[in-house]
C-alpha cells in the first residue's frame, strides 16, 4: 500500500496538471474577490454574516478544484491509457483506488486551505482599502480554513468516485463545474432553501459561510455524498472491462 501511495503521489507531481489547476483556482478566486469586495456597496458588507457570505465563492472554488483534481487523477489515466499499465501492476484495482482517494484527499485539503487563505487574505486587504469594518472573529477564520479544507478534501474524494464512474475527462470536468456554479443555484430558484442540502451548500456551511444548517448535519451530509460517489466509482471500476 505504501508503494501504491508513493506511485500516486509521483503521478501527481510528475505532470503539471495539479499546478495548472491551482493556477486556475487562483485566478478564479482573485477575480471573484475583486468582483465582490470592490463592487458591492459598503452598506452591503457591513454585517458579519454578509462578510462571511462573500467568502462563499472562495470555499466553492476550493471544493470545485479539489473535486476536479480528484476526477482528473483517474480520468487522465483513462484518457492517456496509463490505466492499462496501472491495472497490470495492480490487477485487483482496489489498492489503486484506495491510494487515489488518499492522495486526492490530501491534494484537496491543500487546495481548500489555499483557496480560503487567498480569499480571506485578499478580502481583508480589500475591506481595509475601502474602510469597511472587518467583523470577522478569530473563530470565523479558523472555521473558514479548517472547514473549507475539510470540505475540499471530501469533494476531492467525491471527484475520484465521479471520475471513476464517468471515465470521460471532459464530461467529469464540465459536470462538476456546472454542478458547483450552476445546478445548485438554479435548483435553489425552483425549490428555495434546497441548495443548502446539496454538496456545495453543505460545504459552505462546513466552512462557516452560511449557517442555514448545523455544522454537524452539514459534515454528515458531505461525508455521505463523498462516500456514495466513491463507493459507486469503486464498484464500477472493479466490475467494468478496461478498453
Amino acid at each position: 500500500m505504501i508503494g501504491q501511495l508513493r506511485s500516486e503521489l509521483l503521478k501527481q507531481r510528475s505532470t503539471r496538471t495539479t499546478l495548472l489547476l491551482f493556477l486556475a483556482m487562483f485566478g478564479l478566486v482573485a477575480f471573484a474577490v475583486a468582483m465582490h469586495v470592490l463592487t458591492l456597496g459598503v452598506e452591503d458588507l457591513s454585517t458579519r454574516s454578509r462578510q462571511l457570505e462573500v467568502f462563499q465563492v472562495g470555499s466553492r472554488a476550493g471544493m470545485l478544484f479539489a473535486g476536479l483534481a480528484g476526477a482528473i487523477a483517474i480520468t487522465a489515466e483513462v484518457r492517456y491509457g496509463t490505466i492499462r499499465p496501472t491495472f497490470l501492476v495492480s490487477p485487483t484495482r482496489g489498492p489503486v483506488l484506495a491510494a487515489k482517494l488518499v492522495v486526492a484527499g490530501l491534494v484537496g485539503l491543500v487546495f481548500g486551505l489555499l483557496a480560503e487563505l487567498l480569499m480571506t487574505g485578499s478580502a481583508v486587504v480589500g475591506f481595509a482599502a475601502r474602510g469597511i469594518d472587518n467583523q470577522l472573529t478569530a473563530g470565523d477564520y479558523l472555521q473558514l480554513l479548517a472547514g473549507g479544507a475539510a470540505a475540499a478534501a471530501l469533494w476531492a474524494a467525491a471527484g475520484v468516485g465521479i471520475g471513476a464512474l464517468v471515465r470521460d475527462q471532459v464530461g467529469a470536468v464540465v459536470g462538476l463545474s456546472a454542478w458547483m456554479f450552476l445546478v445548485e443555484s438554479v435548483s435553489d430558484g425552483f425549490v428555495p432553501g434546497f441548495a443548502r442540502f446539496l454538496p456545495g451548500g453543505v460545504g459552505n456551511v462546513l466552512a462557516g459561510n452560511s449557517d442555514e444548517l448545523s455544522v454537524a448535519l452539514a459534515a454528515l451530509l458531505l461525508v455521505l455524498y463523498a462516500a456514495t460517489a466513491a463507493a459507486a466509482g469503486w464498484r464500477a471500476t472493479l466490475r467494468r472491462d478496461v478498453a
Partner: protein
Amino acid sequence: MSATEPTAAAGLDGRPRPALEPMPLASEPVVRISSLSKRYGEVVAVDDISFSLEAGTVTGYLGPNGAGKTTTLRLLLGLAEPTAGEALVFGRRYRELEQPFRRVGAVLESNDFHPNRTGRDHLRMLALAAGLTRGRVDEVLELVELRGAGKRHVRGYSLGMRQRLGLAAALLGDPELLILDEPANGLDPAGVRWLRVFLQSFAAQGRTVLVSSHLLAEVAQTVDRVLIIDRGRLLASGDLAELTRNRQSLEDVYLELTGGGSL
C-alpha cells in the same frame, strides 16, 4: 506424473517460500486458454478459443484487424472478463497471481503514456506500485537504449521510442512471460532487428513470448509457433515449420485461412 504431484500440492497451499516461486511445470503450460469467449452485445469478439503456450517459445498471434487478438490478450491479463471459458497464466487467473508484474510483462497499446510526464517518471510510478527499485528503472531504460531520453517528456518521443518505453515498462519486473501487441509498428529496420534478437534471446533463457502482429514477413523470422485467428475463431495453431512445410510461405497460409487471398 507422480513426480509432479508434491510440487502441485505445495502450490495449492498458497504459501510457497518467496525464493521458490514455482517455475511452470512441464505439465502446466505458461498460458492456458480454454474455450474462451467474449461477447459485446451482438458482437462475438472471441469465439470459443483454446490454446496453450509452453515455456521457452516465441508464439506469433496473427489475424486481420478486429479479429480478436487484442481482446484475447486483454482477457488473459485481467483487463476484461470473459463471457465464457478461462484464460490462465502460470495456472492461475492473472488477477490471482501474487506479484503479476514480476511474472508477466505486457504492452497492449503503443502510446499508454501521459504526454507531459518524462519516460523515467512513467517507469518510476509503475516501479513504485510494483515494489521495484529505482535502480531497476535505470536498468530497463539502458536495456531499451532510452537512457538519454529518460528525462524528456514522452510528448517528444518518436513512435519507435514509445514502443521501446512500453517494452521497458513490461520488462521492469523481469518477467518470465512477455505479451506484446503489435510491438514492431513504428520501429525502423534497426529497431525491428533489435526487437527480434531481443525476443529470441529472451526465449532462449527459457522464458516465453506471445506477440501479436500482422507484419508476416517479420513474424516468419522471429517466431517458432503461430496462432491464426479471424472473426474471433482460432483457425490454425502449430509450429511455423509445420504450417509452412508444403513450401508455402506464412503469407500464403495466412491469406488462405483468413480468406484474404481472394480479394
